[in-house]
């Protein structure tokens, strides 16, 4: 029983991060119908910037409490990622907004490769060690263990998701975003500055991504120029699983994917009598995705949207 509880906790930690990154994909898709493949790299840049700032500050500002340094590092990461996402949208997507849908998809993939290589040039090929932000002493709850950092990951992710839902549903900006998502042209005619709203969507998604990047790097104490790629792919999968374009769906998809992966890896061997092992972890996750899409092509919480003409 404590093993199952532990696997659920593992899955929740993994899933919270997937959900946070998936929100960035789903927000952009909801408004533009575009899959922003560069989002995973924005997450990576967030981790790298936070690491660089932390290294710089611990070197120069001796005697400053670690909490201040960590906060400054996260703030810097968020700021840089927001600026980066704004620039990406302005340079790579806006000029192609009325082009066929394949064109911005290709520039998105190009952006992803470009950012990875720039990061490789700046920070090198080496795996970088991310500093320890919290005590690693694990707490034991009913036989399962969890560290301070993992608690922080779950709490911060949950808070950010609730904050985002509130922003979209109860503010003026949120209403403008929903309007743009429904119909850009009409929203524009109603006095919504569509360009500004789209930029805001990218920038908010990037801020969430930056936080996710810092959390992931801190959790595994590793940062690497390629870390965003696989994470981005998993988060994108989570967004599709939950129903792409739907914020609640992204959260649900992320948590589900995390749980499926961890419980899958933990029990496939036992269920199949050792015939299939933990290397089927990903196969299992994608099998669930395929099954969901076969029966609900729009994802778990997705709504049927009329095809654009």
């Amino acid at each position, binding site marked *: 029983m404590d093993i199952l509880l532990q696997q659920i906790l593992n899955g929740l930690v993994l899933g919270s991060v997937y959900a946070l990154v998936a929100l960035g994909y789903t927000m952009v898709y909801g408004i533009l119908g575009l899959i922003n493949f560069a989002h995973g790299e924005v997450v990576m840049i967030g981790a790298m910037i936070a690491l660089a700032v932390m290294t710089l500050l611990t070197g120069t500002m001796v005697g400053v409490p670690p909490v201040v340094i960590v906060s400054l590092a996260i703030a810097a990461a968020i700021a840089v990622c927001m600026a980066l996402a704004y620039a990406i949208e302005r340079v790579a997507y806006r000029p192609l907004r009325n082009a066929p849908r394949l064109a911005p998809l290709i520039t998105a993939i190009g952006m992803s490769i470009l950012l990875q290589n720039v990061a490789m040039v700046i920070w090198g090929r080496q*795996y970088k060690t991310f500093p320890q932000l919290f005590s690693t002493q*694990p707490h034991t709850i009913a036989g399962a263990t969890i560290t301070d950092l993992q608690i922080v990951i779950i709490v911060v992710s949950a808070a950010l998701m609730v904050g985002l839902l509130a922003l979209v549903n109860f503010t003026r900006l949120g209403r403008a975003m929903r309007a743009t998502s429904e119909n850009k042209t009409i929203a524009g005619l109603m006095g919504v500055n569509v360009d500004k709203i789209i930029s805001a969507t990218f920038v908010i998604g990037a801020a969430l991504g930056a936080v996710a990047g810092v959390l992931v790097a801190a959790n595994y104490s590793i940062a690497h120029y390629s870390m965003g790629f696989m994470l981005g792919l998993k988060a994108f999968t989570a967004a599709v699983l939950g129903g792409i374009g739907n914020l609640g769906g992204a959260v649900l998809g992320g948590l589900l994917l995390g749980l499926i992966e961890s419980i899958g890896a933990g029990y496939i061997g036992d269920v199949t009598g050792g015939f299939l092992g933990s290397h089927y972890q990903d196969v299992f996750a994608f099998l669930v995705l395929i099954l969901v899409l076969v029966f609900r092509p729009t994802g778990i919480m997705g709504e049927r949207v009329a095809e654009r003409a």
Partner: protein
Amino acid sequence: MKLKSLQVFFRNAFVAVLGISLLSLLAACGESEETTSEDGEVLRVVRIGHVGPLTGPIAHLGKDNENGVKLALEEANAAGLVIGGKKTRFEMVSEDDEGNPQKGTVVAQKIVDADVAGVIGHLNSGTTIPASKIYFDAGIAQISPSATNVDYTKQGYKTAFRVMANDAQQGAVLGDFAVKKLNAKRIAVIDDRSAYGKGLADQFEIAAKAAGGEVITREFTDMTKTDFTAILTRIKGMSPELVFCGCLDSQTGPMMKQFRNLGLMAIFLSGDGSQTKQFLTLAGDSAEGAYASSPGVPLDKMPGGPAFTEKYKDTFKQEIQLYAPYAYDAANTLIAAIQQADSTDPEVYLPILANIQHEGVSGNVRFDEKGDIKGGSISLYKVADGEWEYIETVGGGS
């Protein structure tokens, strides 16, 4: 009378000179050529190839190997070896494979075309394996100082040798060590499904079982992952005494951390991919008490280690990086085979190389029927106070 004898002498001398130059012309088409040294003695030049990454991220290791070969050849030249009745001078032809398998085959062909008698290299398994076919086709000996992938000598090429223990030998030592020295009976095995990780884990499992250990589970991950909590939790539920991982440091580092965070108190054991500084920095405090192995022995434990270190420093004015002693041994082994065969013709010296006994810096060099080093040594290390601490060396020596 006097005049006539002088004429005869000149004629004879002319024929002799003509003969020698014709002979040397012929010889130039083979692996060696002749020149005349300053004191008028006839010298034969034999080329020895070296290939390693001389540019790129591990350029320092490639240069280190090259230095090892260079040192061996310089010493042989200073000793003035006589092969096939002629004083012989060795020359190195060094090429850069950039650690890239594709470039490796290109420079291998270039080395073959340069008429070398044998090749020392390459450094990486990834470049050594594809290049070995080219050397095999050309019929010249290849001795790798540092490629450890099992497949290199598995291809049945009679020209392929290595002076470092392979991953199978390492896995066998690790399995034995886990059961007999660390007294672990219940063992969990993880690998990253790569050629290196899977190969090492398979060999470990065989050896651990042979030594009386029980492999309670086999878990898998892949090289893109950094989250191992699910498989570690599963392993924890089986309460193992030891966990072995055939993975590289970029994975064992974070794994070690999650291992301790989950409250898993089993012994952690890994191979040479983790016996690195990077593992220590990535795992942080959690690394304490972890074990790992590495092929070969630490430099100061080698029979000729201290003397070689000094010689290397004197010659190159820098520290040994990593594999130079093995490159030095590989070159000297090749020279010894050529010397014993009294020929630079690979057809003549290859059977002798296969059965050679050479007292090297890193230990005794003898090859088995596949071309792997016999009784290659593996050293074991443990993390103590944030550093890798040497425990013991298994095999080799004698």
